[in-house]
């Protein structure tokens, strides 16, 4: 049996257990309501969940732009210039170990409890790993490649566009994967802490009134969001798979991609 089929079987049996165990009374409905009752609860309040999802998606989208766009830009600058690197990298690296969520109350004081404070928090939360990965990616570009391009008469801008950027793509993608996932975490967590809208807020509110079915409906939505994000990243990685294979960072990334996808289009 291939590992893919095995993985699918595990997922299917988990879903089945989620339905069967609560129904059989082996797990109290308060702890884990059955899948069908969770879906039904979500469906009954479709309007409320739809609105919450729209708020959360909006916050995630804006934060993604700040975290990923800003992270890649800052990472490229820090990675290619030794001056800023020596100045900034130690600060960023030690900042990375601080649980940034402690800053969230400060953001609510500055920006209120609406979407702005979530976007600010999630942006910073996702920015750091994206920037660190991009900076590392630029630094690990094989200097021989740049030297070879120079020996063929490549100008500075030709070297940047034709060599440095394509060579950095695999590491930038792995940074996006981590950074983007953290953006989702950042938005949902901040919604759960202090908020008036969004999926995190719904989960948190239904929990206080012990309405487990509605809590799990929210959890399902967040899960779906994470899966959709992962699928999107995989799609981009597949598009860029030619870049990835053959570089050291790429070989690791390529293991997640079906073999058929890494064959060149001949």
């Amino acid at each position: 049996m291939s590992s893919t089929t095995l993985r699918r079987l595990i997922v299917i049996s988990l879903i089945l257990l989620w339905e069967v165990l609560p129904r059989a009374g082996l797990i109290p409905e308060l702890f884990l309501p059955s899948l069908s009752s969770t879906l039904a609860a979500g469906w009954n309040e479709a309007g409320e969940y739809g609105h919450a999802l729209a708020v959360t998606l909006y916050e995630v989208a804006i934060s993604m732009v700040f975290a990923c766009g800003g992270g890649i830009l800052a990472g490229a600058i820090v990675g290619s210039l030794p001056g800023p690197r020596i100045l900034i990298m130690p600060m960023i690296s030690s900042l990375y170990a601080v649980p940034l969520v402690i800053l969230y109350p400060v953001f609510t004081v500055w920006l209120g409890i609406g979407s702005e404070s979530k976007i600010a928090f999630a942006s910073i939360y996702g920015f750091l790993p994206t920037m660190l990965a991009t900076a590392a990616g630029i630094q690990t570009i094989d200097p021989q490649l740049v030297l070879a391009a120079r020996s063929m008469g490549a100008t500075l801008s030709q070297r940047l566009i034709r060599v440095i950027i394509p060579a950095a793509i695999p590491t930038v993608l792995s940074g996006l994967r981590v950074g983007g996932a953290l953006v989702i975490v950042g938005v949902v967590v901040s919604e759960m802490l202090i908020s008036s809208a969004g999926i995190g807020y719904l989960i948190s509110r239904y929990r206080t009134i012990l309405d487990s079915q509605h809590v799990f409906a929210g959890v399902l939505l967040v899960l779906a969001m994470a899966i959709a994000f992962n699928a999107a990243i995989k799609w981009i990685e597949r598009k860029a798979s030619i870049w990835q294979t053959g570089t050291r960072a790429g070989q690791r990334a390529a293991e997640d991609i079906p073999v058929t996808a890494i064959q060149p289009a001949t």
Partner: protein
Amino acid sequence: MQPLANITPLKPAPRAGAIKVGNVGQVFKTSTQDVVALSDISLEVKPGRFVVLVGPSGCGKSTLLMMMAGLRQQTSGTILINDAPIPEPDPNRVGVVFQEASLFPWLTAEENVEFPLALRGVAKAERRAKAEDALKLVGLEGFGKRHPHELSGGMKQRVSIARGLVQDPPVLLMDEPFAALDEQTRMTMGDELLRIWAATGKTVVFVTHSLTEAVYLADEVIVMSARPGRIVDQLTIPLPRPRTYEMLSGDTFGTLRDRIWRHIRKSA
């Protein structure tokens, strides 16, 4: 095998590639001290010759090669390629082949070979035709659509050589091109290189750590000493061409290799 003669260079470069190195020195400045990497190097390579540079690690032979390629400037002295200095890389005069890692992994073999032409804005069809000729010359006909990770070490190095030759420069500089290959592939690639060299008439300067490879390939071997790098011996290899495997066990071969080894052991 078809020679590269039917590939017209963009600027009509002189066919012959002569290299003159006069009193070249190189000093690296570090914060604490100045390190003399090369001291008073003078040598002349006549057009069409195959010259090999050997020496202990850190003797500056790769540095010397990079200066001939215009990738690095000497601190003192002159380097002339076809009687003109080379202040920056000039792919019309000099092609460079590095160790295998220098192929762009995101490009196919033919795109890699086309790369120097693409930098100059040569039209797609002309680029493709030249790349195909160059790949044919190195024995890789039909492998153009593959990516580097789908090629063996020896094949990657053939692509590298094709890339160095695609603009038909009179001089080909090779910096330990076979260092990452296994022994058998290395021997085969040596023979292949000699075949390509004979077919194109290029001037070749080849840097290696392998004394056997040096004697087997060269018209002339230049032996350098450890830092500060200077020329300690210059040997003409009298072995006839084509070189054959049997020569490796001959007396002439052994004597020449011993002579080089004594120099290197002394300075290492």
